[in-house]
């Protein structure tokens, strides 16, 4: 089976987010870049499906030149080849992104059985591209998936909902958008990294299009104020602690 997994290069998180002076980008100098976390799980899932059922996985990204780093990361854990839709750094909105991906898939000549996406990108959080790509091809689409299995020509996908699971069975080819928690992505090994350097990346430059979404500027939300109240020290603090626990309904 052939699996396509679509990923996005996004600033890593972990530190306080700082914006570039023009408020158009996140200043990632101190953060570095990574694969959007849901998509990291999608890559791992693609590799596992191939390990189990045979075939090959392809990774695709739309992004600047630097996004080859994320393609190599995906290939270092077992994806065989990559498609890089190289941008000049300008952001493609969900419609433009979809168009570029759809054109690339059509031009690629491979019949993909499963198209894996992250549920949403870690930076823009649009929740759209997977659904739009499915619509463009007329494929079934299930989103927010945390468990996946392939049986014959069918995919069984499970989505976690409060109190239980929704289980879908769809015919391939299908689009699945996955969520963190579906698996624990592996770390790349040294041989994996070295192999990835030699794996092919097919690069093309889709023209930027105005999909209708315009970024005005980025803003960081005000930090939540944390109020710390010291209840006391040693034994004298005990009554206040008890009082607090009672108010919280814990006692």
């Amino acid at each position, binding site marked *: 089976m052939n699996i396509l997994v679509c990923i996005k290069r996004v600033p890593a998180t972990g530190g306080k987010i700082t914006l570039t002076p023009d408020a158009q980008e996140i200043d990632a100098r*101190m953060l*570095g870049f990574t694969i959007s976390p849901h998509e990291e799980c999608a890559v791992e899932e693609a590799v596992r499906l191939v390990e189990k059922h045979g075939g090959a996985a392809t990774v695709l990204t739309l992004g600047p030149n630097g996004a080859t*780093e994320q393609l190599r990361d995906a290939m270092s854990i077992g994806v065989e080849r990559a498609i890089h839709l190289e941008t000049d750094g300008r952001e493609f909105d969900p419609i433009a992104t979809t168009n570029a991906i759809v054109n690339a898939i059509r031009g690629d000549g491979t019949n993909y059985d499963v198209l894996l996406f992250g549920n949403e990108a870690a930076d823009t959080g649009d929740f759209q591209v997977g659904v739009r790509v499915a619509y463009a091809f007329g494929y079934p689409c299930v989103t927010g998936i945390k468990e996946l299995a392939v049986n014959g020509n069918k995919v069984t996908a499970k989505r976690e909902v409060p109190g239980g699971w929704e289980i879908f069975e769809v015919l391939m080819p299908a689009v699945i958008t996955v969520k963190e928690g579906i698996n624990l992505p592996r*770390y790349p090994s040294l*041989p994996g*990294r*070295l192999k990835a*350097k030699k794996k092919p990346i097919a690069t093309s430059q889709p023209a930027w299009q105005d999909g209708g979404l315009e970024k005005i500027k980025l803003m960081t939300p005000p930090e939540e104020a944390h109020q710390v109240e010291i209840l006391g020290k040693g034994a004298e603090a005990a009554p206040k602690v008890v009082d607090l626990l009672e108010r919280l309904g814990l006692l």
Partner: protein
Amino acid sequence: MNNFPSHAHVVVIGAGIVGNSMVYHLAKLGWRDIVLLDKGPLPNPGGSTGHASNFIYLVDHSKEMTKFTLDSVKQYKELGVFTTSGGIEVSRTPERVEELKRRITSGKSWGIEGMHLISPAEVKQLVPFINEKIILSGFYTEGIGTVDSLRGGTLMREAAQTMGALQVFPNTEITGMQVEPTPGSGKRIRAVETTKGAIQAEIVIITCGLWSPRLARMAGAYIPLTPAVHQMISVGPVPQLMDTVGEIKYPIIRDMDTNMYERQHGSDMEVGSYAHRPILWEPDDVPSIEKAALSPTEAPFTKEDFDPQLEQALELIPDILGNEQVGIRYAINGLLSLTPDGFPVLGETPEVKGLWSVAAIWIKEAPGIARAVAEWMTDGNPEIDPSGSDIARFYPHQKTKTHVKARSAEGFNKTYGIVHPREQWNSNRNVRLSPYYEREKVLGAVFYEAMGWERPTWYESNAKLLDEFGDRVGKRDAEWDARWWSPIINAEHLAMRERVGMVDLSAFAIFDVQGAGALDFIQKMAVNQMDTPIGRVTYTNFLNAHGGIKADLTIMRLGENYFRVVTGAFDGARDKKWLIDHLPAGPEHGEGPVTLTDVTSAWSTLGVWGPKAREVLQSITEADFSDKAFPFATCQWVDFGTVNVLASRISYVGELGWELYVPFEQGARLWDMVREAGQKFGIAPVGIGVYAVTGRLEKSYRLYGAELEQEYNLVEAGMARAKVKEQDFIGKAAYMKQRANPPAALLCSLTVDDNTSASGIKRFMQGREPILTLDGGPIEDARGRRSYVTSAGAGPTLGKYILMSYLPPAYAKVGTKLKVEYFGEQYPVTVAAVGATPLLDPENKRIKG
């Protein structure tokens, strides 16, 4: 915070391994009222200590660094945070095989035990997962290990608190520094401003690692270092390491030829590299704790820089790194500090009194350095001489960002490099040029750098002398011995000894000391009687309070209250600070009774020496250069045509001759006059290869930093004067005591009896090799100091190869047969002279002309 102090005796900024070690040692030495601040939380405030790989190799070619390391290991062991694992440096190339032998040799000089040169099969026995097929040899040191530096730091900090000496405030950022003018034109630290308020302090110590330059600038001082990336990854879980109890079971590997290391850490293997391109940062670009993804000093890993190293690591440890189940779990561009010469930056800043730097320090040496600096602060006499790391060593151009970055970048890939003792820097050259420079270039001068000065080491135009002197010149067949060397040096030597040579000495650092208190001041500083007739030149030393040798220089008395101090380029900046520190009313241009003016850039110096020196100079001046009119150890103002020159009749090469001090802009004219006049006497331009090595060694003259240092005294150096002057001087009491007691060692000149190696090639020691007994055992004096070669070089006139070394009295006798080790082989040597007695011309007839 209401308990935040408004005053402290000492404020230490930075609670990494260095700051914690500092407060501990200060407290131990009785210092109280210390405050330790850090902008980060404890125990890991986010500096380089937090991501250090924490392993400690013992051997360094530098004695100073090795001693700091050995002392640190001892301290870590006492704290119970050291784990001995052993460590192996492996060679992949024949050149490295030789270098590992040289490293063992250095280790022997500095007193390290448990070192073994082992075969690839023996490496495999110790490290079963290594691919021994690609290595040629291993240098195994039993005492190598790892340390828990965060725990060690915490223990030291808490010990200082327990002693009642220390208050600690984490999460407190420095926002500014306050300085106040001293009586002269200098500054002294007054207070640090922090996010929790200002603290007045007499002493502020910057132990902030790579942030140090920024802190120093707040006070108007310089700490010349740059943050730089050291890439490291950690892979795991490694099946072969899973059953390890504790942190480390297998010896640490240093893959020297690829500039990498592999070190077990529990069930992980850390792979670090110094092979990638130098990646330098600005201190201001290092993010705050909030903005950093991991910590401020764990920057995002740049994979493409590390990729070439992956293959090399895989090649060496295929069984572990080639396992597809072993993942790269952690990868950082770890930030550490680099300096332009690779040494730490220690001591009080020359710009601001009371502001100290203890920076650019690795885990392996931190507690040892902290002890030395604490001793230095307490009584000026650290047990381990930190002169090579003294912040005062830097001249202004060496503190510029351009220089710091250029040299740090150049030095980075030499971290595990095979660096020849004479190896030259490529970057930022031609900084300080003498007035003779253009003329020297025409003569084919091969320039070596001395603290920015370009000094001819020999002149290719003298190649014609090789034929003249034939076999006496000597040749070197071993590439290493001949590297950064030329037989022309020996030919220049012979030309000078037999005729006359002219030497560019413009790199001298020169200070004029003047004023009503000048004589008293100079008397206080110098060992010799300085109340001499005007026009006397005195070769003398400065001592520290404990009688360690602090400086080695000449002083001319130019007037009743006017002295000119002349010292070497490598010591000038440090000597200047020592002088300024002791001026009666503060710093340079002080308002007190003495002023010190740095006239280094005003005067260039041309040395003219050799049996024909008098005739050459007499032919271009009307002044009387006869022995009667111009005796040895005197100086006079004389005219050479229109050039008024201060001529000083002394010599560092043991020949009749003069140092001519000439105004910088008239130097070229003087050069031309001397050279033209010298033609008929066969004058040769002579390089520093003669001046600092061959000429000096034949006369057993000492060099500061080689023979002379704070760890030895004048009696041991054979330089105790016949009489002790009545006047007081720094170190006098200690010096009197040293004279009254038998010395633990005596400086000797030795000659190599047979320098033929096992393979039949003549070898030439380069200095710092161990002197051994006839049965090959180390020699240690009563103070625990090993005997090693302080200087080595040819003696072309004597026809001998000369070594200098301190030897315990039992060996310090003319005729004693000993051995020297060089690249793993031992060669017979004989003690040829003890003390100041020169090998050549012991009666000094040549100098007296």
